[in-house]
């Protein structure tokens, strides 16, 4: 691991100041991804600003509806918070499907959003080609092993997928990310938080390097009674998704009033399927309805040689997740 200057910040402003005044400085929260990347030499910050003591750990109701999740609340505490479990079980389920209990005890909500892809060509500098790690070097995965890679929204330069489960549920729930930088606070809708790779895959998010995530804000819950996060992976547990689906239904008199569908493991960002959601409005929750939505959600998928299976897998996962969400199994 490279040498770095360690600074401990106790307050938001001090944390931001320490980032602004340092060249190539990074915030350190749970560290479960950053320390790993530093061990591999993928990231080499010259300064780490430890924000673990900044008071951003609260989880509290937002007056007028909704829930504010502190950026530094640990993933395990968030998933098990009574208000999250009761009103946003989709989020609890998604968080609990990711990593392991040990990692979730360290990992924070803000850090979860900022974790980097686990594409092996990115994670290991022994691979010479990775446009995300070293812009302009090419994409090792495109011409190499890519069975876990993107089928939606990828570019010539990068076919990596975003690894977070939590972010997929947040995309379905329509969360916003509240951030603060030298110019003040702003809200970033979760749909605009992560980026597609395009020609600049080295940039994962629209968060600026000097901005600190303060909280993740959830709108009022419409889907608590009918939601499901279904994660498909090579192992039964403790693995990243091949495909995952966050499905949520708002039911009225036996038919679907509104719905949310978001996919993980298929794109450079959590993939919200809004056209598929629109197809469900006003329909009865049954297999034919769900299959039509699944087909629509995968419209435009562009697989490579080794990951074409994900299209069929994603369709089945959508149907199954909607079925479990609707309780019509």
């Amino acid at each position: 691991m490279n040498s770095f200057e360690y600074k401990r910040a106790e307050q938001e402003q001090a944390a931001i100041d320490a980032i602004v005044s340092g060249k190539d400085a990074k915030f350190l929260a749970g560290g479960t991804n950053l320390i790993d990347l530093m061990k591999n030499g993928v990231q080499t910050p010259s300064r780490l600003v430890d924000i673990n003591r900044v008071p951003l750990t609260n989880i509290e109701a937002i007056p007028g509806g909704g829930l504010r999740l502190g950026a530094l609340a640990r993933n395990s505490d968030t998933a098990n918070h009574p208000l999250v479990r009761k009103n946003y079980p989709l989020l609890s389920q998604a968080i609990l499907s990711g990593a392991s209990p040990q990692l979730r005890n360290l990992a924070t909500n803000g850090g979860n959003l900022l974790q980097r892809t686990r594409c092996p060509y990115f994670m290991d500098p022994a691979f010479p080609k990775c446009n995300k790690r070293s812009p302009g070097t090419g994409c090792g995965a495109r011409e190499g092993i890519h069975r876990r890679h993107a089928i939606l929204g990828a570019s010539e330069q990068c076919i990596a997928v975003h690894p977070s489960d939590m972010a997929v549920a947040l995309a379905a729930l329509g969360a916003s990310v509240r951030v603060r930088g030298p110019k003040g606070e702003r809200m970033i809708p979760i749909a605009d938080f992560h980026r597609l790779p395009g020609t600049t895959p080295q940039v994962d998010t629209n968060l600026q390097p000097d901005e600190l995530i303060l909280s993740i804000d959830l709108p009022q819950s419409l889907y608590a009674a009918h939601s499901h996060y279904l994660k498909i992976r090579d192992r039964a547990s403790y693995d990243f998704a091949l495909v995952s689906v966050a499905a949520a239904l708002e039911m009225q008199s036996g038919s679907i009033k509104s719905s949310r569908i978001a996919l993980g493991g298929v794109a450079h960002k959590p993939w919200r399927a809004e056209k598929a959601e629109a197809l469900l409005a006003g329909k009865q929750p049954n297999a034919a309805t769900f299959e039509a939505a699944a087909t629509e959600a995968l419209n435009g998928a562009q697989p490579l040689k080794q990951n074409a299976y994900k299209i069929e897998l994603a369709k089945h996962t959508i149907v199954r997740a909607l079925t479990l969400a609707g309780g019509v199994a």
Partner: protein
Amino acid sequence: MDHKAPQPETIYKEIQPQRPIYRWSLSRRQFVATAGILTGGAVMGFPIHGSGVTVTEVEQPAAEAGNIPLQLTINGKQQQLTLDPRTTLLDLLREKLQLTGTKKGCDHGQCGACTVLANGRRINSCLSLAVTHEGEQITTIEGLAQGDQLHPVQAAFLEHDGFQCGYCTPGQICSAVALLQEARRGDASYVTADLRKIGTADLTTNEIRERMSGNICRCGAYPGIVAAIEEVHSPQKREGA
């Protein structure tokens, strides 16, 4: 925040076998260390004094720019240290404090061998910088037994053959101890049927397997590990099984 340059200091530490259950034996590490000292000299026999090596000097690095003072409590004993901030909690335990019960498996948070408890919560010590644990209470496998009295989870692992080679065992046991506390507190897992129902977790076999999935055992001692945890969680249930 600026840190003052730490004073040069040498900390003398008494390294006693924390819980000398087998008092007659040197640990492998003590044997290796002792053999190293004796190499090149006359073989004088092993210095067995009932509790193995008793005093070891731990050299602290000189006060280098960027080193960070750190105070934390490990297995009930307060530690005042000065550390290169790159030091992970795992390397602090093993390399600086000779608490080698905690194991380094993958060193990347993928195997769970390095699991310890920080303020009672299980974490991967390999992915956590020691300096981020200022003021915390750390418990390692060495800190679980009470004198000669094994922790119930340790005893259950012996009873149910919860290991073969034993390398993952300290992490498995620390993880299991935390799992039982989490279940009592009502924490949920991905396989919990109804997340909206808050209450004590029902630790089915499936639940235990999911909740222990962060600890890999290459020997495949999983059936014994699950049985050990079931036994501690609900002894009467296992007797009836």
